[in-house]
């Protein structure tokens, strides 16, 4: 090992260490940004080190350099452009897209390596064929799976669970093909067609795995696929014998698994039931919806403004509708206006409000809502009893009292006790359903008044109406 290789290996080690430290710092809001920058710095060192290694030991051909430079320019440009221009509301699907390409890259490494070894004609040792096959399987599943998840969140693909006729049989057949192919390659046989068969099976499996899962569960699915990609990258590390890939991949695989569990816990779901639910195991509950009961009371703008302006305490409950309408600034404006009139204003943040955990905090923070006013669910729930008005802006399932009773798809999900407030105002475009696809009993509550409007327009009108009082 010459001096330069030692230095590059140290650069990779620095990279791996900063990933660990960066992730640790991302556990707490105060240090999170710093942690991400640390991790990015480590990444830059690791990649820079690799470039130096290729330059100094001359292993890269001229074409190799062209491929690297062009590839980095294309990928970097696309990544930078999309990441900087994406709207805050569309971030979850973008993360899923980045996850897809990461998994794709990991699978491509194994495919390329296999083709090279196969063209040499020698037999392939088990210690290479195992990670190669696993890398192709996991990497391809995350590639198509994440693309489908992203498509569902973008609305390109229906967010509803899509159950293909005979879907379970197709899935079973695919699994059998992939398993048979994998075992065949592990027995020492070298066959490029079989490798491509496994690849095709895994790509299809990714689609059939995610399609039947409802959009509301996508955050957990994306997190799980993120963990998969980590594992695929670790496998790629075994294939090409590179430690930093193994470390970073295993790190993401394991931490992603924990994070997936945390997210599922926040929604009171188990990861297994989400995935099995997708395969048709858990559909029994869907459709057993409770009727809204009672008629829905529509509220005029001025009535709503008076209720808010003369309340002593108001709790605002933001949801996905607020994110879609980009109404966070209007929301903050109304909050400030009410505060200036001496109303105590707080924001109730459900852990899974919006499409991703933390989505609402991000949006409201962007609009400069003071952080101390944002209350997490456990903290705010007892306060609804004392609140004069709960103002629900584009939130639905997370306020549905049906969750307290068994027999509904949202049963058992922790909800915000909005119905405990003395009065409830719901700003909503229509009586449309939330992601769980069920009616919200809250809207039939005699205490509830509906203000049918787009979240942004509705809030702006409320601001004017309160000012006019």
């Amino acid at each position, binding site marked *: 090992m010459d001096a330069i290789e030692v230095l590059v290996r140290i650069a*990779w080690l620095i990279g791996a260490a900063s*990933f660990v430290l*960066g*992730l640790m*710092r991302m*556990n707490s809001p*105060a240090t999170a*940004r710093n*942690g*991400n920058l640390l*991790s*990015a710095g480590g*990444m830059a060192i690791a*990649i820079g080190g690799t470039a130096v290694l*290729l330059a100094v030991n001359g*292993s*890269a*051909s001229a074409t190799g350099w062209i*491929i690297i430079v062009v*590839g980095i320019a*294309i*990928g970097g440009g696309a*990544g930078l452009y*999309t*990441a900087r221009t994406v709207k805050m509301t569309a971030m979850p699907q*973008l*993360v899923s897209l*980045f996850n897809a*390409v*990461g998994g794709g*890259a*990991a699978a*491509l*490494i194994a495919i*390329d390596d296999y*083709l090279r070894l196969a063209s040499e004609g020698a037999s392939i040792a088990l*210690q290479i064929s195992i990670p190669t096959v696993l890398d192709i399987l996991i990497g391809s599943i995350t590639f198509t799976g994440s693309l489908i998840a992203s498509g569902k969140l973008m609305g390109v693909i229906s967010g509803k669970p899509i159950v293909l006729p005979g879907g379970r049989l197709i899935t079973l057949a695919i699994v059998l093909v992939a398993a048979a192919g994998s075992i065949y390659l592990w027995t020492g046989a070298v066959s490029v067609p079989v490798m491509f068969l496994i690849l095709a099976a895994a790509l299809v499996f990714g689609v059939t795995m995610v399609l039947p899962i409802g959009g509301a569960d996508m*955050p957990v699915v994306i*997190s799980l696929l*993120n963990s998969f990609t*980590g594992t695929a*990258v670790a496998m790629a*590390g*075994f294939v090409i*014998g590179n*430690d930093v*890939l193994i470390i970073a*991949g*295993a790190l993401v695989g394991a*931490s992603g698994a*924990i*994070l997936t569990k*945390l997210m599922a816990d926040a929604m009171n779901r188990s990861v297994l039931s989400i995935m099995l639910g997708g395969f048709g195991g858990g559909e029994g509950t869907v459709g057993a919806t409770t009727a809204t009961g009672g008629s829905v009371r529509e509220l005029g703008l001025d009535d709503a403004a008076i209720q808010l302006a003369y309340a002593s305490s108001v709790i605002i409950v933001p949801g996905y509708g607020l994110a879609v309408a980009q109404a966070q600034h209007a929301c903050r404006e109304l909050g400030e206006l009410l505060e200036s009139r001496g109303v105590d204003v707080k924001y109730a943040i459900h*852990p*899974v409000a919006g499409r*991703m*955990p*933390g989505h609402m905090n991000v*949006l409201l923070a962007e609009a400069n809502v003071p*952080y101390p006013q944002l209350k997490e669910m456990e903290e705010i729930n007892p306060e609804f009893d004392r609140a004069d008005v709960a103002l629900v802006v584009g939130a639905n399932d997370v306020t549905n009292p049906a969750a307290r009773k068994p027999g509904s798809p949202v049963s058992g999900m922790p909800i915000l006790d909005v119905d405990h407030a003395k009065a409830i105002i719901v700003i909503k475009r229509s009586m449309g359903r939330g992601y769980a696809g069920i009616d919200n009993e809250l809207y039939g509550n005699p205490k509830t008044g509906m203000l049918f409007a787009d979240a942004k327009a509705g809030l702006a009108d409320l601001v004017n109406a309160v000012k006019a009082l």
Partner: protein
Amino acid sequence: MNTEILAALTVFVLAILCGFAVISKVPATLHTPLMSGANSIHGIVLVGSMLIAATATDVLSQVLSLVAVAFATMNVVGGYVVTDRMLQMFRKKPTSPKPAEKGEA
């Protein structure tokens, strides 16, 4: 089994344990940025993509590694930038930060 693969396995297992250990009680607020941050880390696959691109000789291999490099770079660059954008929202405001939180990290 040779020593090389054993060493790699050792590293793999320890890194998994490390991954389990670094995630403690994360406030729900940070779930999305944390996932996005972890997502950028597996962009390290770019190192592997560069290594295979460097020695790609036939056309198929060159195409595969070009796609791999582009995909991986998109993962790295996009991942870190989008995570930073999310976390920027938590930047210190005159009213908020509690330095006490540092201790338990």
